[in-house]
């Protein structure tokens, strides 16, 4: 699963440009399950188990990552852009990026600190003033390499470090994709449906359509969520903890989770000896927000990998939490299909 995650994280795939991710996933599940691509680009997968399912269960993970998109080129040859998904400006200034199909390298420049006034040394530039330098001498030269609408992703250096940690872009939600791929490639007891969804980061656009198509009784969302277990952050403010295991939410900004299902998830973890924790703050949101409102309603639960520095070019998570999350999601899929 680690090698799969590494390859997934290294591929480009901002919202609406999930093609490379989808093709990679197909290459990994070919022969293990039936699949189709829906009109929005969601990859919908059916995996036959040893037994038919009593309840239809759908597992979801989103393929897209946050990034940037080219909006124009200045007369001086600099690239202007918009953010795709929620990104704090602080984490992108001074970073390296790759643009478009040609993977053109560029950097987010900033006026040298030497030239700022003393009281402006810590001022973060306004989004409208940001630009990417690709080395072009003017607009015409730049247009030979990039054009408006090109996707921009963060230059990546996937690495394992510290005590079993991983550092990379796009762990949100390639970790979920890696988990689902792993389940599809393994032996399963019951029939199961999967949605690798598009466009989560710009407002849960894809998963609603795949839930409509699959029409499940239950859904389990495989996600990453905000771990704030940082220096000086205590107790509940940590939200969840890297190394604390699979993270189950009772409520977030997009979904009030089914109370019984929430309890059932915690019990299932306990029964199977899987490390589990509860998200201790009502924050963030994910595809559960659109899946639970599909058709006449779907009972949904989210199991997340606790992940630090979400939506930055360098998110950090612990590999053992991915394993715990996979184990819980697999156990839940089996239990819900047979209950």
């Amino acid at each position, binding site marked *: 699963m680690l090698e799969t995650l590494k390859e997934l994280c290294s591929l480009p795939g901002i919202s609406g440009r999930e093609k490379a991710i989808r093709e990679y996933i197909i290459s990994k599940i070919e022969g293990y399950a039936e699949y189709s691509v829906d009109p929005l680009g969601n990859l919908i997968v059916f995996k036959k188990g040893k037994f038919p399912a009593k309840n239809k269960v759908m597992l979801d993970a989103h393929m897209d990552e946050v990034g940037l998109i080219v909006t124009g080129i200045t007369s001086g040859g600099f690239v202007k852009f918009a953010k795709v998904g929620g990104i704090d400006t602080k984490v992108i200034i*001074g970073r*390296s990026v790759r643009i478009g199909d040609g993977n053109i390298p*560029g950097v987010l420049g900033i006026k040298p*600190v030497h030239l700022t006034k003393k009281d402006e040394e810590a001022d973060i530039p306004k989004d409208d003033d940001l630009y990417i330098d690709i*080395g*072009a001498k003017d607009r015409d030269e730049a247009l030979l390499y990039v054009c408006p609408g090109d996707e921009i992703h963060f230059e990546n250096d996937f690495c394992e470090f510290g005590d079993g940690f991983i550092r990379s872009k796009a762990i949100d939600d390639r970790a979920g994709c890696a988990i689902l791929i792993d389940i599809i490639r393994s032996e399963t007891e019951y029939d199961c449906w999967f949605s690798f969804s598009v466009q989560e980061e710009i407002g849960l656009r894809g998963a609603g359509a795949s839930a409509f198509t699959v029409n499940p009784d239950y859904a389990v969302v495989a996600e990453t969520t905000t771990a*704030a277990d940082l220096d000086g952050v205590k107790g509940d403010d940590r939200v969840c903890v890297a190394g604390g295991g699979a993270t189950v939410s009772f409520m977030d900004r997009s979904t009030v989770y089914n109370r019984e299902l929430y309890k059932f998830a915690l019990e299932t973890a306990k029964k199977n000896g899987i490390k589990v924790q509860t998200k201790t703050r009502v924050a963030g949101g994910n595809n559960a927000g659109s899946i639970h409102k599909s058709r006449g309603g779907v009972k949904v639960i989210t199991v997340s990998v606790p992940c630090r*520095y979400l939506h*930055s070019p360098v998110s950090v998570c612990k590999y053992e939490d991915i394993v715990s999350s996979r184990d819980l999601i697999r156990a839940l899929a089996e239990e819900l299909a047979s209950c």
Partner: protein
Amino acid sequence: MLRVNEMEYGAVKKLLSELCGVKGTSGLENDVAEKVTGLLSEYMPCKTDALGNVTGSKGEGHSILLDAHLDQIGLVVTGITDDGFLKIAKVGGADIRVLTAARVTIHGREKIPGVVTSVPPHLKSAKDDGKAPSFDEITIDTGMTAEQAKKIVSPGDRITFDGPFDTLIGNRIASPSIDDRAGVAAILRCLQLLEGKKTCRIDVLFSAQEETGGSGAKTGAFNSQADEAIACDVSFASAPDVSKEKYASLGEGTLIGYAPSLDYEMSRRLSRLAKEKDIPAVPEVMGGKTGTDGDDIQVAGRGIPSALLSIPIRNMHTAVEVVDLADIESTARLMAEYILERSSENA
């Protein structure tokens, strides 16, 4: 795949890429010093002095000192928190605005990766003051517990910023450490261009601790006591937020310093030579001192008349400094022409 014009700039690119690939913050320049010693010893015998300068000398008679600084900005570990995060202070003029979410290398007992911590937008309160955190608030995540971290990292260990060595469009490079490996590359390239030519004495000073105040240049120049000196550093290039009227553009050429602290005759000679030899160059005028090693060299010992050649770069003191290889080549060529002319005059 973008390619530089290998015929014209291949040599400079090779030097720059080798030099940017090693790290060395002020006061702990060991790795880059070792690399530079290897490169410089192809041209002259060289040694490392008490402060960590790498120096070399060859030839007889009239002497010209060439200087560029070895060190780069970075951070220093000041402590390890109970949760295993590193507390830091800056080494030289690190830019707080680009620290959040930066990839770093911690040079402890072994080199380990880390990342500057940040809070995701999901957990931000509605009001954002638009300010970067202060250095006191910054911590670095090593993915270790305090106990694990203490086995590898201790206060005083240095931290450098990571980033790729990227080839951009038009012979331009983006990389960490271009300040002042571009200057070091220019001097090494100059020595390459002078190979087989008869010159006066050339002293080379690859100085330590420029970013923390110029101690290396002061002592290194004292030891050299050359008759004249050319310092080679980087300067500001224009960008969308850096005035085109005030600062040179990338690719315009080497910047010939004019300042009260610099020797006027040397500056004028450089400008004349640039014109005669058709080397791209533009004047860079400063009102007092220059903020480079040139200031310290000028007043070393009984004083050394000094000139300054600068290479324009963008995003100075970030991990994405951008330079045009053509400007390094122009700097090297002009330096070489200067040495040849002075050598024949003093033969």
